[in-house]
């Protein structure tokens, strides 16, 4: 019985990653979008403290109570804060996934790939692997940004402070991966670039929020977008504590399971679709 990490599975995966990567390496739009995205999140990471300082400064001028300034970057809160901020930009990776999957349909290169000897499942796997790696790279950027910012803004630094709440980093990976899987599924089903982007936006901003509004909370918490957003809840700050507002500062197992479940479902839908249609 072959182990999932056995040589031949690994070789296949590396081969598929290599093939897929060729499609992006020489694409100008890929590099522009990717660099823009990574640059943007790093800038946001670096600039958010300054932004927050401005706000508390201004608020402080007008309020009777003194508003404490707080550091976004101190361990252990930096993990949560940056992961939360990065979550706003998951639209970039999703966009990249949509563009490159729908391209395979517009250029009909999915047909060419399959005719040349790739199975439909291998094609799907190559896209899932691409998303996995892309999400991994984003997460690594998050990790090092938080590490560096945390290191320079925490005094004193203890090991336990650093490791505490690091769980938000893999949580971010899961959020990105799941959302990209949703985008990938829509791209495979709709096949056209503009329409896919529209459907993704429609679902994210309109359909699910509407459904969530109509359903009671106990049920709506199981919806995919909600689960993804809920993975990393709004981080607490001393400001909010002042007002008695307390958001979750941990990652709930339910949300993790839901995201894993939905990723599975999205991939499964594409698998089923590929098995039963002409391409």
């Amino acid at each position, binding site marked *: 019985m072959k182990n999932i990490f056995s040589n031949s599975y690994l070789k296949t995966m590396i*081969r598929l990653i*290599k*093939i897929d990567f*060729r*499609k992006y390496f*020489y*694409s*100008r739009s890929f590099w522009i979008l990717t660099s823009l995205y990574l640059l943007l999140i790093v800038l946001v990471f670096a600039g958010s403290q300054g932004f927050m300082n401005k706000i508390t400064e201004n608020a402080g001028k007008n309020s009777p109570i003194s508003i404490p300034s707080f550091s976004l970057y101190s361990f252990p809160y930096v993990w949560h804060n940056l992961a939360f901020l990065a979550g706003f930009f998951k639209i970039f990776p999703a966009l990249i996934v949509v563009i490159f999957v729908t*391209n395979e349909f517009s*250029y*009909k*290169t999915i*047909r*060419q*790939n*399959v*005719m*040349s*000897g*790739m*199975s*439909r499942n*291998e094609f799907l796997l190559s896209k899932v692997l691409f998303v996995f790696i892309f999400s991994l790279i984003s997460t690594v950027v998050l990790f090092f940004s938080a590490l560096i910012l945390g290191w320079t803004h925490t005094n004193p630094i203890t090991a336990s402070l650093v490791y505490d709440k690091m769980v938000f980093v893999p949580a971010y990976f899961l959020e990105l991966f799941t959302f990209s899987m949703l985008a990938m599924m829509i791209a495979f089903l709709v096949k056209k670039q503009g329409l896919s982007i529209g459907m993704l936006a429609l679902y994210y901003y309109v359909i699910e929020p509407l459904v969530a509004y109509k359903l009671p909370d106990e049920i709506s918490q199981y919806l995919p977008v909600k689960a993804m957003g809920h993975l990393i809840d709004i981080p607490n700050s001393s400001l909010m504590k002042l007002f008695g507002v307390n958001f979750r500062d941990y990652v709930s197992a339910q949300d993790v399971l839901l995201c894993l479940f939905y990723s599975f479902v999205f991939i499964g839908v594409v698998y089923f679709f590929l098995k*039963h*249609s*002409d*391409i």
Partner: protein
Amino acid sequence: MDTEILEIQGLSKSYGHLKALDSLSLKVERGNIFGFLGPNGSGKTTTLGILLDIILKDSGTYKWFGEAPSSQIRKKIGALLEQPLFYPYLSAVQNLKIIADIRGVPYSEIENVLKLVELEGRKKGKFKTYSLGMKQRLAIAAAMLGNPEVLILDEPTNGLDPRGIADIRDLIIRIASTGITIILASHLLDEVEKVCSHVVVLDHGGKLFSGSVDEVLSGTASFELAADDMELLEKTLSFEPWVTKMAKEGQILKVHLTNDRSASQLNKFLSQKGVYLTHLTVRNKTLEKYFLELLSENHDPTN
């Protein structure tokens, strides 16, 4: 079986109410240059699409090299289906590298296939800058990567000018001479006649005819005759059993003879009978004629 490259049994496919393929069965042997003929919508492209796992069949089976179909087997089959499909922002070499990786073929082969189709000079340019003829040639180059045993070409001369068509024809003949089995779907009957060894004629998803091209072409030849004394000519010929058909068209008498009569034999016979020809033309059966006859028979409500 080593000689049977492809076997199709009872293949059917419908698109909604439209029955594109109706229980098609046929065999292709190694080394054949097999022509798929048929009007638009007859099921040629659907059949080829099913064989390449692009289109899903409703029922029936097919086997490549005697084995059940799989993506591994497709690595030994090269195909150009309807249009050349490539990434427009990549160059010929970059596009071919992707295909080479899929097929498990070393990159050194890329030079060879580009040479074969004479595209070496433009290999670094982006695909979107290529002319249609170049795109078709690149598609054939891609199909030839990895030394396939079968080459499937669906309308490879689509949209090409006469020079392009001749180039592709030469290329096909060159490739065929290396022993590769070729399946060629085409409208251009005279091209098929020049190049193919066997043909299958499809119409409305069904098989009208399957056999060798020689079978089709050797058949009765027809002759156009004229003589000073037309009446004597007609009379002389009408008594002979080896004259199967006779029709007068203006000043010309068209006759069909059985297989074994040649023009010189006919000439000799007539002169012995005192009929001297002023006009003798041999009209060989063409695939086109046969094809059109076949199709009109198929559509004839009295049939």
